[in-house]
């Protein structure tokens, strides 16, 4: 990032900042158990769960691995897996 007076820079650049690299656990979704209820999408604080037709896609570019989706999933369809494994 360029150093400017007042640290004034072009806006809207956060999309290019892939915060998924902060994650140390990744949520993995098992579509065989998923009831497509939408809980994971609604609780995700990073809006990193997207509905695509009849399935859910987790956006690993922005998922920070907080685990809320796995905790809230009523069908236990999401498992948190350590990134180093």
């Amino acid at each position, binding site marked *: *990032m360029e*150093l400017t*007076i*007042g*640290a*004034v*820079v*072009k*806006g*809207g*650049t956060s999309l290019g900042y892939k915060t998924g690299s902060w994650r140390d656990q990744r949520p993995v979704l098992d579509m065989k158990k998923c009831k497509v209820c939408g809980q994971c999408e609604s609780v995700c604080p990073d809006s990193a769960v997207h509905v695509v037709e009849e399935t859910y896609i987790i956006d690993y570019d922005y998922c920070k691995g907080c685990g809320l989706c796995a905790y809230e999933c009523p069908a236990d369809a999401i498992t948190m897996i350590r990134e180093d494994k």
Partner: protein
Amino acid sequence: MSVVKVLEGSEAVALAVKACRPQVISAYPISPQTHIVEGIAKFVADGDMDAEYVRVDSEFSAASVISGASAAGSRAYTASSSQGLLLMSEVLYASCGMRLPFVITGVNRTVSAPISIQVDQQDTMSLRDCGMIQLFVESSQEAYDAHITAFKIAEDPKILLPVMVCMDGWVLTHSYERITLSEEKDVDHFLPPFKPANFLDVKNPKTWGSIGEEDMVMEFRYSVQQAMQYAKGRIKEIFAEWAGISGRNYGGLIESYKTDDAEVILLAMGSMAGTMKDAVDNLRSAGDKVGLVKIRSYRPFPYEDIWEAVKGAKAVAVVDANLSLGSEGAIGMDLKAKLYGAPNAPLVVDVIAGLGGRDVNESRIKKIVEKVKEAQASGYFLREPYWAGLNPTIVPQGV
């Protein structure tokens, strides 16, 4: 034609702000600042002033509103005191870093506890490190003129920092003085509309105060320090330019009063400097070579100018109406740090005076001068500040 009126100090400030045509005012009441924003509210309500007047829920919001307004390219203003200024402090640090040139009147009042609404300079001076330019004034007329120059200093493209005009509560804000008001067309000529290079614009989105970590925070701070250093010269030019238009000249970053041959020099800020000028005159009539340096710009700290004024003296009594608990008064610390190692520097004695509205009257000032002369004659370097007017009989015992 300028107009002469008898005005309360707060009214004079409200009129100065009106003449500067700010577009956004935020206001949250706190004594002794309230009359200023009340006065401005009336101008706006009467249609005499075309500004957005935002009544906020706290001083934190008051500072946030002018911060956002300034980023959007508006000239913005608020006023506060004491606890209110302390509540603003987080926003003020960020605003200085984001180089947002609004103006605040910091009406000097002590801070809690004990709860007190009386004057001292603890509140404004505790914000000295955040990056604001801080001007201190002796009279309401000087407050009027300082506000007009404050916007021009803040908005200078090479400065771009908030300016706080610090004026003593009650003594100035609530007393009536003969005030000469300049013509608005003169102010308009002196202070053209605010046109920043960067401003919030939906068509060209920008972020203020973006992230910067260990690779750039030092350089960022250094650039603000450079702006402060540049401001020293520019403030003098702006003061001189307004003095030429208004006919009222208070000096530059400091005002030296009878310092040329002075052996003991008092150094102070704000309204007590007025009493000190009388004390200096009377001491001189009695044969004492005493002078006064009044600091007008506390940040940036004008040590070069102070050195020029005090270098021939034997001793300097720094009268601090504030205290950095666990050390001493803030101006005392500043001056000792800057004079250390200077050849034949005068003895600097820090004096704590006037806390919580304790009167700094002529007899007390004479005692300060006596005390400093004693210290100077003994050759003993006072490490602890001298407390002027302390009543030891009521100090609570036990820790």
